[in-house]
C-alpha cells in the first residue's frame, strides 16, 4: 500500500514545472493585432461549435424519436459529444486569454 502511494507521489512531483511569463509590447501605431485576432478566433470557434452541436443535438433527437427505448444511451452519447465539442471552443478561449492578458 505505501509503495503504491510513494509511486503516485513521485509521478506527481516529476510533473511540477515553473510557469514562464512574457513581456508585453505596445505597437507603435496603436493597432493591436492581438486583440483583432482574438476577436476573430473566438467568433470562428464559437460559430463552428454552434453548428457542430446543432448537428449532434439534431441527430440525438431524431434517434430518440425513432427508438425511445434507447433514450438513455443516446442521451449519454449526446452529452459526451456536446461536452467534447464545447471543450474545443474553451481551448481557443484559454489561448486567447493567455495573450490578451
Amino acid at each position, binding site marked *: 500500500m505505501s509503495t503504491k502511494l510513494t509511486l*503516485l507521489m513521485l509521478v506527481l512531483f516529476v510533473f511540477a514545472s515553473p510557469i514562464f511569463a512574457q513581456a508585453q509590447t505596445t505597437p507603435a501605431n496603436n493597432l493591436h493585432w492581438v486583440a483583432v485576432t482574438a476577436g476573430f478566433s473566438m467568433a470562428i470557434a464559437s460559430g463552428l461549435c454552434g453548428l457542430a452541436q446543432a448537428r449532434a443535438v439534431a441527430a440525438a433527437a431524431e434517434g430518440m424519436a425513432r427508438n425511445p427505448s434507447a433514450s438513455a444511451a443516446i442521451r449519454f452519447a449526446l452529452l459526451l459529444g456536446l461536452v467534447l465539442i464545447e471543450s474545443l471552443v474553451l481551448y481557443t478561449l484559454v489561448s486567447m486569454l493567455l495573450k490578451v492578458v
Partner: protein
Amino acid sequence: MLGLFNVHAANAARPWANFVTMQIVVALILVVLFAVLRSRLSPDRPGKAQHIFELIYNFLRGTSEEQIGHHGSRYVAFFGTIFLFILFANLLGIIPGFESPTMFPYVPAGCALAAFAYYNVMGVKEHGVGKYLAHFVGPMPLLAPLMIPIELISHMARPLSLTIRLFANMYAGEQVTLVFLGLVPLVVPVAFMGLHVFVSILQAYIFTLLTMIYVGAAVAHEH
C-alpha cells in the same frame, strides 16, 4: 516553518492563496459530510442522506462497470473521490464570499495530473510495465514509428484537455456572471448563476467519466 528554508510568502499579510484555503474548506466539508453520513447509516431504516449517497454510489459503480467491464468496481473509490471533490469545489463558488478552487488553473491541473497518474499506474498494475508500454506500439509492429508519436501525443493531451475543460468552464462561468452583474444588477445574473450550477455538475460528471474511459482503455484486455 518554511522560513527555515528561506521560503517566504509573496504577501506576508495573506500567505495562503485563495484556492489553497478553499480546497481545504472543500476537504473539510467532505470529511464532515461523510462522518455525519456514517453515523446515520442503517440497513433497515435508511434516512435521506443514505438514499442520496446510495444513488450517487450506484450511479458511479454502474457507469464504471459499463466503461471498464466486470472489474470496474475496483476503481470506484478514486472515481468517487474525484467526482465529489470536483462537484463540491465547483459548487462552492456559488455561495457569495467563497471562490471555487477550480476557478484557478492550478486545482484542475492537480486533479488532471492525479487522474493521469492513476490510469497509468492502474494500467501498469494490470499488465506489467513492459506489456503496458507495448500497447503504445499499436496493432502491428510495422506501424510502430507512426503509432508511437501519435499515442504519446494523445496521452499527453489527455491531462491538458481535462485541465483546460474544467478550468475554462468554471472561470468563464464566473466571468460571465460578473459581466452581467455589472450590466443589470438585479434579475439577469440569476440565469447565468443557474447555468453555472448546471455546468458545474456536468463538468464534474464529465471529468469523472473521461477518467473512467481512460482507465478502461488502460486496463483493457484484448480478446
